[in-house]
């Protein structure tokens, strides 16, 4: 289980770095956080998992999109 999630996390992280499209990179980073929070749950850290899910993958990604949207507006 952990191994599987680990591979997924790493794959997502690499996508986040390599993908040219900013929105995909941001989403991939959010997914990294999400999987990380699953990992926390596995490691008996529910508090951390909740925080990571809410803040790391939720709110952070939201702010990223605000900025991306703004930039798109300028460019478009």
């Amino acid at each position: 289980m952990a191994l599987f999630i680990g591979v997924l996390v790493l794959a997502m992280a690499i996508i986040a770095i390599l993908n040219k499209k900013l929105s995909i990179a941001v989403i991939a980073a959010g997914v990294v956080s999400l999987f990380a929070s699953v990992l926390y749950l596995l490691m008996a850290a529910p508090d951390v998992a909740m925080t990571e899910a809410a803040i790391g993958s939720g709110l952070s990604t939201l702010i990223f999109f605000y900025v991306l949207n703004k930039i798109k507006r300028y460019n478009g």
Partner: protein
Amino acid sequence: MEYLQLGRISLIISFLLIIIGFWGILSQKNIIKIIVSFTILDTGINVLIVSLGYLKGRTAPIIDASVSQGPNHNVLNAIVDPVPQALVLTAIVIGFGVTALLLAYAMKLFKAKRTLEINQFNDLKW
């Protein structure tokens, strides 16, 4: 199967995430991508902290019936290390604050030069 323990696996994952984060920070030209890399770096460090506090086969540090009244259990042998978890909570919030600030900077930078290439912002040098 000692090497497939959860603690070890997540330790390796965390190290790899940190390295990927550094890779992105050093190789990406786009500021947004650099900030994304920073969040990956942060996540890596957080996973590292939690996995160092993990003890095999133990439960979350919440003392409920299953822990305190379990058969030959005392709390000391039942729960994982709570300290790293407390630290990670702080680290996550700090990471969020820094990311928000970095993104605000990214917007400012973009407004200044209409580009997000980091090598365009070298007004100060030498």
